[in-house]
């Protein structure tokens, strides 16, 4: 991000139950409507009341790639936030706090403390979250915005709760605005206006919407953080979109129900996190064996086991690669951003429909629970739909073999309900007609043919997926390689390195399977120094890439403390590696959340 354009991060810290989400949403809407881009990350804990939450909302005039390295405006809803984060605030920043309840610490030089006498300004309101409204008013003044902007946003967000609620909030917000205008120094430049209004979504919304746009008609889930947002979106919108949404007893049931629906010819999907995905794995193999296309979404969180439910990690790569017993292929896509996740859904559905096999979307907490702006013109709500060899209006023409061994390996698929095409699909090995060759009629020749047929159809379809390309300068001192959600932070780190005179380029991997080994090897052939960036300890991606390409990276930047990378973690890692040939650099998380 260029230095003379807007780059501002607002952080709101408090305890769960203090209503941080509301000012976060109000601000996000205000900024996006103004045409400003935003990227927000909510560091929280697995607790419904109490604990510590820090919502970081970064805005800019161009696409914002990460939640950034610093905070410009900190709202302390409790003492804990002040104690934890005042020391992160640098020159030119402002710290808002409820002066009735929070003791400010000793700020660094140039930090503006903005006390808010909440009781006085809210006229002793009994409303426990009134300080949020007050702080919104204060922020409007600090940001150089007109009060009317906030007034409109409050009306829209709170309108459902009635005029009384809107009225109280507007009065208090106004008091905060006036208080700030009288007492505090605003930012040097008021917020600019972008060329057109932008939309706001969470990554899970983007995934769900992508599924709906792809034609999903059946969605099943068991609640699990950080994937529940997909369920909530589906539950909210399913009825009006004609999508069946089921909350099921466990993820085993979820996956099998999804497969049952998919076999009827509907597009079906389900989402979970690593633990639930572990329960789904046997079913994923059954979809491969019965040749039923379905999409399984794994939103990674820090593991193993229950792990840290509200923290992020890229720790399930091995799990998705090895999901289910036996020897078979599945598509695996790791989107780079919320928009990429949206686009990946119809793409993945087309692929699994064409290859009649399971597909996995690998997201993580950072993408799925983050809130981002998007340009409405980039969101293709009517994507191309390709159902492959699904035949919905068949005319009987003799003996139908569900698993006909064709040149491409793809067999025409007629779902149940059609006359003249009665057949049985089985998780046992079977012949072309679907007759079991697992018990009485074992036959090595047929077994071999069926294994090869399934492999061939996957290869046929996978060949159409575009390989990754090197981004940035062709020659560079360092080539950074990452997969999935690290895309934005790496791109930003490369820009920062360039400002410091270090030339770096980027190979971002989106498709895990098929892995474009040849393209990756070519892209890395001339790399001076390959550094793999991933959010785990053991280097799952590095191992996988080495296995697929034979290429060993020169060094690694890894983080496994539950928090995502921010750009300076990568920048400092690269510097350290260049200076000292450090084999594995592990950045320290400074912001304790």
């Amino acid at each position: 991000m260029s230095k003379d354009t807007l780059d501002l991060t607002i952080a709101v810290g408090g305890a769960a139950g203090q209503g941080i989400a509301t000012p976060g949403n109000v601000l996000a809407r205000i900024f996006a409507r103004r045409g400003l881009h935003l990227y927000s990350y909510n560091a929280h804990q697995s607790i419904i009341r109490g604990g510590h939450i820090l919502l970081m909302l970064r805005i800019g005039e161009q696409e914002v790639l990460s939640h950034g390295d610093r905070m410009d405006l900190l709202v302390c809803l409790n003492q804990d936030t002040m104690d934890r984060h005042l020391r992160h605030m640098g020159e030119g920043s402002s710290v808002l706090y409820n002066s009735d309840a929070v003791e400010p610490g000793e700020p660094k030089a140039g930090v503006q403390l903005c006390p808010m006498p909440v009781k006085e300004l809210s006229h002793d309101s009994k409303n426990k979250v009134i300080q949020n409204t007050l702080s919104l008013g204060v922020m409007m003044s600090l940001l150089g915005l007109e009060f009317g902007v906030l007034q409109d946003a409050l009306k829209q967000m709170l309108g459902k709760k009635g005029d009384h609620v809107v009225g109280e909030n507007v009065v208090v917000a106004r008091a905060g605005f006036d208080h700030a205008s009288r007492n505090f120094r605003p930012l040097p430049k008021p917020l600019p206006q972008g060329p057109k209004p932008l939309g706001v979504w969470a990554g899970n919304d983007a995934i769900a919407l992508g599924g709906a746009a792809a034609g999903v008609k059946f969605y099943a889930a068991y609640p699990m953080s950080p994937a529940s947002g997909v369920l909530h979106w589906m539950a909210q919108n399913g009825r009006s979109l004609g999508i069946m949404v089921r909350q099921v007893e466990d993820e085993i049931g979820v996956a099998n129900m999804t497969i049952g629906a998919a076999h009827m010819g509907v597009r079906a999907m389900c989402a979970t996190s690593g633990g639930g995905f572990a329960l789904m794995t046997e079913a994923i193999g059954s979809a491969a064996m019965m040749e039923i296309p379905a999409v399984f979404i794994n939103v990674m969180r820090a593991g193993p086991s229950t792990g840290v439910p509200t923290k992020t990690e890229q720790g399930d790569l091995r799990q998705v690669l090895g999901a289910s017993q036996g020897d078979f292929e599945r598509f695996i896509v790791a989107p780079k951003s919320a928009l990429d996740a949206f686009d990946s859904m119809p793409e993945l559905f087309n692929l699994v429909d064409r290859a009649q096999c399971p597909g996995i979307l690998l997201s993580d907490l950072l993408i799925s629970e983050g809130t981002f702006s998007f340009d409405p013109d980039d969101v293709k709500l009517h994507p191309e739909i390709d159902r492959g060899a699904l035949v919905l209006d068949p005319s009987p023409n003799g003996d139908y073999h569900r698993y006909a061994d064709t040149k491409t390996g793809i067999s025409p698929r007629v779902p149940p309900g059609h006359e003249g095409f009665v057949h049985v699909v089985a998780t046992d090995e079977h012949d072309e007609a679907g007759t079991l060759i697992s018990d009485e009629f074992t036959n090595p020749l047929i077994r071999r043919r069926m294994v090869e047929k399934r492999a061939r159809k996957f290869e046929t379809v996978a060949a159409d997926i575009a390989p990754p390309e090197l981004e940035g300068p062709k020659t560079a001192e360092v080539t950074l390689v990452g997969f999935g959600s690290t895309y934005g932070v790496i791109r930003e780190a490369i820009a920062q390195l360039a400002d410091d005179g270090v030339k770096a380029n980027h190979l971002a991997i989106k498709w895990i399977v098929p892995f474009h080994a040849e393209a990756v090897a070519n892209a890395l052939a001339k790399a001076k120094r390959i550094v793999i960036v991933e959010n785990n300890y053991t280097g799952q991606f590095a191992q996988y890439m080495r296995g697929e390409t034979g290429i060993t990276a020169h060094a690694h930047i890894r983080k496994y403390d539950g928090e995502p990378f921010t750009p300076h973690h990568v920048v400092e890692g690269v510097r350290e590696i260049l200076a000292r040939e450090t084999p594995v650099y592990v950045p320290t998380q400074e912001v304790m959340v």
Partner: protein
Amino acid sequence: MSQSTLATPITELPRTPSAPKEYKGRVAPDWCPGCGDFGVLNALQRACFELGLMPHQLLVVSGIGCSSNLPGYMNAYGMHTLHGRSLPVATGAKLANHELTVIATGGDGDGYGIGGNHLMHTARRNIDLTYIVMDNQIYGLTTGQISPTSRFDMKTKSTPQGSVEWPINPLTSAIMNGASYVARGFSGDPKHLTELIKAGIQHEGFALIDVFSPCVTFNLDNDFPFFKERVTKLEDEGHDPSDWKSACEKAMEWGETIYTGLFFRSTDRPTLDRLEPVLQNAPPLARRPLGLSDDQAQALMRRMM
């Protein structure tokens, strides 16, 4: 398309089958001679025939185990799924195409052991499925270990000194969890069983039909003579199937008298497929156009702006 040398191809009929044998599948069952499952298969085929079901509108979903091989022996659409998972797969299938008649089949290990959790929840959802469990009180395909319905003290390969666990009661479990049709049949009385299956298929809601289907190879404790001496039809006893307490009392009888027949039926609770708003006044999901309409797309976009 190459022709399988193993399968006997059958051409499905555009008319209602004229005999139960037209519901026979591509291959003959590979069950042990004398297996109770033959009687269940025959009763199911006869029930389908007598109800005039068209094979292409019928879906039979099973799990894994000897009895779960059944879909391959039927002339109907079939899914031979994972061990214990017939009910969720059948549920997904029914919800995606509620015009099909969906029957789930399997054994006691499949349905009451590894798949037990699904039985409880499928019962409470009261989805319109018929679930036929061939209950032989043993694991047969794995060559003879105790099952969830094996009696206390039963000696098997996995309990050589006798089992020290009590069996579950599938009938009271199903009633307690909300199944709206709960019956028990005996493979040795195919006529009675056919009637129970027919009524189960016709019943709107989740129907569990537990069937004594003796394993002649691995369970010599509960063989055909054992049941023949004991089974007594509830219909002959004047049992009122709307009385769940009496149904549970009858289901707990396990001695000189063991009851078969319709234990419980209720018709006052609508089925899941009728209650689900997305299915109301609309064609099956499987026949709906994909993607978003312009209006839907615009409304969704507006909400995010």
